[in-house]
């Protein structure tokens, strides 16, 4: 219970002060202040909610809910959310209240800290992806993909092509945005776990209205597809090429910039964000400079102040909703600035060498797990080269996953066909992997 003398938690003014203020500006009481609201619009009586509680009581209630969840000690599940290490610097810096409690940096003179941190983030994302420019962030990977697809809708181009080897969760969000925008989404079939190139070529050539093609890299099955070929086929058909990436894979793999992608999007969660039950995450969006004025979302640009000193501002705002209203490139306003800050801190902490190290660690652990699982009969479902995720067959996925779960291990994700999608990160030690394999051996 809240002490009676306090009006309510977080309200500083006392009842006496409130009354004095009311009287000072000509109102008898709160009823008088609210008398202009029609009576039939007002809530009758109290809300049907519990009474307010002290901090200690609230702490206990919410802790109780947290304790009802299972925290696995060892995680081999990815499929869009990855258990990467978050360096101590990330929480320490991102939790500074100046970053935490600021609004969008509209007033540049007192927001240089936020603006510069995002400018640095934009630079790091451009460097990571090899693209010319990056925006200040989107909600998450899937919504970034959906917005990217809609960048290329015009009167003559309204079909969006998405590979069947893309995560169905991403496809779902693209389809939802397309339901809004009245665009058409076509799924390009896959073969042997990768995009069917011949089908892609045929579909794009037959459609004069194709706007873009989106692939995932590595794809949902973990396979690193030949993006150069897909890019060539797409560009030959005068269609824009969009890559959806796992950013840490780019510590090793050829970048979207090197491949020639028009836009690169991705889920930024691996860059210093926890698993967090799915959010808040971070939508990455980077592009070729020629699409600068079609990019959705905030962009921070460098400029000078009246003394000629360097400073940063929100720029190219003529694309945005508060200026352009119904003609804006997107309705996005708030994005995921604090998550972008985390990603910037993460990348600055690990540096170029750490980026390469973590990409190598993820790949190596995954290949070791794949090989060891193969020895106990869980064979790779596809031939394609993979980075940190791969699909194996499994005689009884439910049984294996349960056995792992009983030991505090979150195994791979069971797919519709009964196969399992496994993921490794730098967090999985050789001992953890050997334990999984030993349990699999025991089960089958």
């Amino acid at each position, binding site marked *: 219970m*809240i002490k009676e003398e306090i009006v309510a938690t*977080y*309200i500083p*003014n006392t009842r006496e*002060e409130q009354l004095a203020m009311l009287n000072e500006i*000509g109102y008898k009481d709160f009823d008088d202040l*609210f008398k*202009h609201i029609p009576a039939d*619009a007002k809530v009758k009586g109290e*809300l049907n*909610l519990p009474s*307010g509680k002290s901090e200690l009581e*609230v702490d206990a209630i*919410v*802790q109780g809910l947290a304790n009802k969840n299972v925290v696995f000690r060892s995680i081999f599940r990815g499929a*869009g959310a990855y258990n990467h290490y978050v360096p101590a*610097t990330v929480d320490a*810096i991102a939790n500074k*209240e*100046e970053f935490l409690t*600021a609004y969008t*940096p509209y007033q540049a*003179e*007192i927001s*240089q*800290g936020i603006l510069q*941190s*995002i400018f640095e983030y934009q*630079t790091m994302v451009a460097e990571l992806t*090899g693209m010319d*420019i990056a925006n200040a962030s989107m909600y998450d990977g899937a919504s970034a993909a959906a917005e990217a697809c809609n960048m290329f809708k015009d009167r003559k181009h309204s079909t969006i092509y998405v590979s069947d080897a893309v995560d169905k969760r991403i496809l*779902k969000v693209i389809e939802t*945005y397309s339901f*809004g925008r009245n665009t058409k989404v076509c799924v390009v079939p896959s073969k042997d776990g990768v995009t069917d190139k011949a089908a892609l070529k045929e579909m794009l050539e037959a459609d004069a209205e194709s706007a873009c093609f989106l692939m995932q890299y590595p794809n949902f099955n973990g396979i690193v597809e030949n993006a150069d070929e897909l890019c060539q086929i797409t560009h030959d058909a005068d269609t824009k090429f969009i890559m959806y990436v796992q950013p840490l894979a780019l510590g*090793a793999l050829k970048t979207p910039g*090197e491949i020639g992608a028009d836009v690169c999007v991705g889920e930024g969660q691996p860059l210093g964000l926890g*698993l*967090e*039950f*799915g*959010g808040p*995450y971070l939508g990455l969006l980077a592009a070729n400079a020629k699409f*600068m004025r079609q990019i959705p979302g905030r962009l921070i*640009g460098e*400029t*000078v102040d009246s003394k000629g000193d360097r400073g940063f*501002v929100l720029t190219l705002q003529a694309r*945005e*909703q*508060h200026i352009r*209203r119904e003609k*804006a490139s997107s*309705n996005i*306003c708030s994005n*995921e600035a*604090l998550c972008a800050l985390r990603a910037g801190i993460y990348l600055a902490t*690990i*540096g170029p060498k750490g980026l390469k190290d973590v990409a190598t660690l993820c790949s190596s652990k995954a290949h070791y797990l794949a090989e060891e699982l193969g020895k106990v009969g869980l064979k790779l479902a596809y031939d394609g080269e993979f*980075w940190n995720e791969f699909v194996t067959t499994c005689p009884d996925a439910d049984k294996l996953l349960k056995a792992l779960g009983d030991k505090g291990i*979150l195994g791979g994700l069971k797919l519709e066909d009964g196969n399992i999608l496994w993921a490794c990160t730098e967090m999985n030690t050789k001992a953890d992997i050997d334990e999984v394999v030993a349990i699999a051996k025991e089960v089958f």
Partner: protein
Amino acid sequence: MKLIFEKSIPGRGQQIFPACDVPEVLPKVELRKSVAHLPEISENEMGRHYTALAKRAHGVNDGFYPLGSCTMKHNPRINEKMASLPGFTKLHPLQPACSVKGANELITGLEKALCEITGMDGVTFQPAAGAHGEFTGLLFIKSYHESRGDHERNEIIVPDSAHGTNPASATMAGYKTVEIKSNDKGMVDIESLKAHLGPKTAGLMLTNPNTVGLFDENIMEITKLVHEAGGLCYYDGANLNAVMGVVRPADIGFDVIHMNLHKTFSTPHGGGGPGSGPCGYKAFLAPFAPGLVSRDGGEYTRAEKSFGNMTGFYGNFLVMVKAYTYILTLGKEGIPAAAKNAVLNANYMQEKLKDLYPVAYDTTCMHEFVLCLEEIHKNDKVSALDVAKALLDYGIHPPTMYFPLIVHEALMIEPTETETKETLDEAITAFREIYEQIKNAPEAVCACPQTTPVLRLDEVKAAREPVLKYQF
């Protein structure tokens, strides 16, 4: 100050990752040739870099933040503590439903509380921010009309005072925006509304209290008229802080609504997100709800005619944890008390400023009010922007400028309920001193700010010669 890249020295860095304990293998594909120019910097230097950046930012704890329409209230520490519990942060979104019962119980509890506050029957947490919630709400409306075979309705009515996100969201949902005029009291002009309602009307988007901080006294008639024309009513919850516990959007005729958890429910704004824009809906819209939901600890299910997903998983979960913590803390007494004190603080400031700075609509306001500096600009050549910049030298974050568009030279002030009378009085004094200066030395006001880390910035140059990343 230097950029982090300018502090980077090759060979420096931090040891985060261990040596590889299995054979090193990379996929046999083409690998990256270019080196990513990421900073190479020690932990100490990096810590100082970001501390310097933090000193060049202004958060709620740095000073008064009356940014209209943004509800920059105090962000409680307990919210952050709860959202950092490993029982929440270490959950994989694709863990079995039976292993995340506490998380789903929290989501369901928050849904129930928000239903009670808004009068709605269900809430989806899929949207990651307010504008995302608007888009979601419009997809509910679109799904509803389409399910009835009513394909002619392609117009969304939006008042000229609306947030820019409203028309932008309407476009994303495939609708044509029809703008209606506000009347001389700053409210919806009923005749203009009637003239635009018809068989093409899909719905109306309305903020109430509206963007000039006024509660629309004709609200019951407005929503009735829209319904009679076959349209649905969408409530933009940006200003819910003014009426929570006092007025429920569902009770005044709204069918679908979004809320900004990062405003009204005090999960912080983070310098521009992450937010959370849950969308509340009446029961007849429930079949269209997006996303997967686990109720009572059961498996995940999807609504029968769901229009899809707005985000990859379940929305911004940790933001929900903070909002739930906040609602538990405030409770049934604290929620209306917060709204009432927010309205009191706004009216107090309005009353103490309006003799010098004309108010756009001189009447009882809700949680915010709008000053109109048109006359001052004309007579003294000092603009709303100049006054805003002058406030910076007082350590006050300026109000929202040049919005809503129906008020010229607008300054929109929202003090919020968590500010003391002393803080309001200090800000009032600042505004009044600036007014004195406008009259005595207007050029000095136009030269503000003088005490900030940088002076006024050249926005034209930034847009004409865009530099969006560091040039190595």
